[in-house]
């Protein structure tokens, strides 16, 4: 995995972009508060909330015990009084500890008893940094399968900033995955002023005619690299970065497939039950006649994320794997 952005003067990392989004929202709206473990004095495990306590005080930067259920539960309660808490999972893997609060309480409140839960749950996710099986997860699909939630997984600093702002202003529980491999590996200049990016809109990163590669988060960069390789071989790939997984931008997906007639889906999440299956089903339902070849997918293996570098590299998709799959598909 590498990134394609070329740093410019004034460009910032994804960590800084996320930090800016939170600071700006907290300055804009006193109902926005932050809650999580070690987010205050220490500034968070990845320093996303660095300086937040000093600026906004202990009432708005709430440091909690190690208790994810308490964090999400309290955030839900706060939201009932009109606050907009942004919860940090120190690593998104730990969201498994509060699964019940997220899926049974937060996700169902509006549907069942008309109580909106405007909270954001954000945290570092993804592999490639040798974090091992409990610090590298991509648990987005547990939540993709939960009606009532929104799931965002950006790949660039400016998207992260714009989408996080939208998430904070959204009236629903939003899960915001931050790929830790991307935290400091790429820099980008932020658009001017108070800008947001709408939730549920994919981005076409590269236009192409021969096949469509759909991906998101760190794999969006891998897909772009593969597209560059493929271009050398005369294969013109279109690359779509989903940015939001739920709600899924079916329109952009279908429009692209109708144009290129071939679809390759790449994700860092494990294979079985990954988003590729859902996208394949959507395309088969609505664009089957447009397909000129099988829907291909390149994903992580169906194993926990292994720790040792050779194991993890074997586990993860990479540019070579994507290029190989695209070559095969292009022959149809």
């Amino acid at each position: 995995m590498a990134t394609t952005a070329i740093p410019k003067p004034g460009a910032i990392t994804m960590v800084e972009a996320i930090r800016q989004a939170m600071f700006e929202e907290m300055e804009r709206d006193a109902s926005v508060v932050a809650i999580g473990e070690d987010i205050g004095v220490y500034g968070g495990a990845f320093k996303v909330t660095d300086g937040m306590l000093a600026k906004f005080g202990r009432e708005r930067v709430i440091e909690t015990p190690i208790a994810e259920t308490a964090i999400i539960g309290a955030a839900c309660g706060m939201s009932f009084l009109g606050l907009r808490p942004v919860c940090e999972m120190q690593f998104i893997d730990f969201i498994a500890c509060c699964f019940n609060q997220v899926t049974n309480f937060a996700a169902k409140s509006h549907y069942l008893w008309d109580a909106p839960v405007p909270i954001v749950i954000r945290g570092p996710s993804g592999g490639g940094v040798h974090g091992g099986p409990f610090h590298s997860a991509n648990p987005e699909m547990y939540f993709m399968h939960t009606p009532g939630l929104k799931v965002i997984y950006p790949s660039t600093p400016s998207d992260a900033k714009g989408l996080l702002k939208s998430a904070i202003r959204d009236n629903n529980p939003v899960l915001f995955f931050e790929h830790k491999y991307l935290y400091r590996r790429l820099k980008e200049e932020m658009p001017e002023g108070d800008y947001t990016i709408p939730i549920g809109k994919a981005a076409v990163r590269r236009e192409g005619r021969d096949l469509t590669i759909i991906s998101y988060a760190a794999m969006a960069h891998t897909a772009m690299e593969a597209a560059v390789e493929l271009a050398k071989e005369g294969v013109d790939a279109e690359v779509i970065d989903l940015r939001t997984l739920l709600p899924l931008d079916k329109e952009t997906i279908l429009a692209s497939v109708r144009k290129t007639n071939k679809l390759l889906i790449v994700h860092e999440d494990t294979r079985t039950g990954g988003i590729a299956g859902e996208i394949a089903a959507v395309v088969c339902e609505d664009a089957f006649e447009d397909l000129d070849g099988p829907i291909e997918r390149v994903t992580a293996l169906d194993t926990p994320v292994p720790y040792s570098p050779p194991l993890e590299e074997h586990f993860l998709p990479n540019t070579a794997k994507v290029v190989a799959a695209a070559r095969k598909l292009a022959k149809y």
Partner: protein
Amino acid sequence: MATKAGITSERERGMTEPLKREQYLDLYYYMQLNRQLEDRMVRLFRQNKIVGGLYSSLGQEAVSVGTCYAVEKRDWIAPMIRNIGALLVKGVPPRDIFTQHMAKYTSPTKGKDGTSHFGDLKVRHIVSPISMLGDLIPVMTGVAMAGRYLGQNIVALTWIGDGGSSTGAFHEGLGLAAAQKAPFILIVENNQWAYSTPVSRQVPVKNLADRAVAYGISSTIVDGNDVVAVYNATKKAVTECRGGRGPHLIEVKTMRMRGHAQHDPAEYVPKEMFEYWKARDPILLYEKYLTENKIWDETTKSEIDARIERELDVEQKFAEDSPMPPPEFAEVGVYCEDGCHKIEAEWKRAKADVMPPKSSFNPGWKMQDLGALGEIPTAKEVAAEGPNGTSAAKSNGAPARSTPGLPPQNFVNAAPPQRQSTPPTAQTEATEPAEPRIPFGRGPKDKAFRESPDNPQNKSYGRGGAQGKTFRKGHPEKTFNKGGQNKSFAKNPAGKNFSKGPQDKSGRR
């Protein structure tokens, strides 16, 4: 069991002014309304007009009514499935409960959920429960924190059963509430049974309230079948909680007089247990109390009873005549979309207080001690320092808190009492603006609490006698005794010798 028939003396300990006559009659009205409403629902259940399960609160009406009667309109509650009486006190009309149970389109959830699973954010301030128990504790902690943040001066109250008190959410929620000193009240409704499992097989402490000590919060134990006692204990807690003392836990001892739900004949409950509690029926006791204290007469009683009948006739008819929801309504409302709700906090303080530059400060931890062994008094030692300083110490033989070779105790503050009375705010930088007090949670620091009769350490309730009887001399470091609970096992209601291991069966459904 040391409980005696009739209204207990708990009331005398309450600090509240006496209730007015109308309020006494209110308590009766709501308890009887609760019972008659459920009685009708049992009949509807037998007629197959109730969809799904029906969970009785028979025998527990005094808990729902007495606790909720003590909170104000601005305060927030989150009931459990059996707290129908609390919903009624908060102003929910009986038709809402009928229609919910009958899955009608006119119900608060329009058929999307049943039973007492509904809420009201705007008017009555009720948070809907979910079936997984304990999860409302962190949620209501958040409500309490938000209320404080917005300057609303509210109290958040929820209930948990003996069964639900074993869940992780209970612990996480109470831990956060304690750490935050949130204005939060937890009613531990000990109805003796988590589905089919008795308390003694779930929890190896004598009283569920004993657990409060471990969270560093205050607690009270009260007779759950004495509505006035329940009211007074809750009222006191609400007043103190609103005053900023932090969370409070009230254990109410009562009895579930039916099975877990209608399908369950509760044959596992020893007959004598039902008989004992039947004689202590909360409504029966309260009727007697009202008569003996000349608060009402037969005429008043029949007037109220007739009123309840009239009201329930109308409400039940409304529910029975209501339509079922249209099937396609299942698709509506998963997300809060544009224009669906306007979410706006109600600020009762200046927003500028929580905005920079006013909110800005120079953060950092200021430690009160080095955290060394012997430097910090244990919970038992704190208790031993109790009201007259010696009585508790005598009873359990707790050693003097000084261990050779340890750092001097005057590292930060000279004497333990001073350390104990240090306000939690002192633990952050002095430059910090006025903020909620955030203690480190090493047990009760508040001297007033330590010495108050509300501190369970200062109480000797019923079965187990004074704590720490079996404390082993000669082990000065081990101040938590492991044997003190055995008595309560021996005296389990069924008279059987249960094993001593803690069981973790919660009452989830």
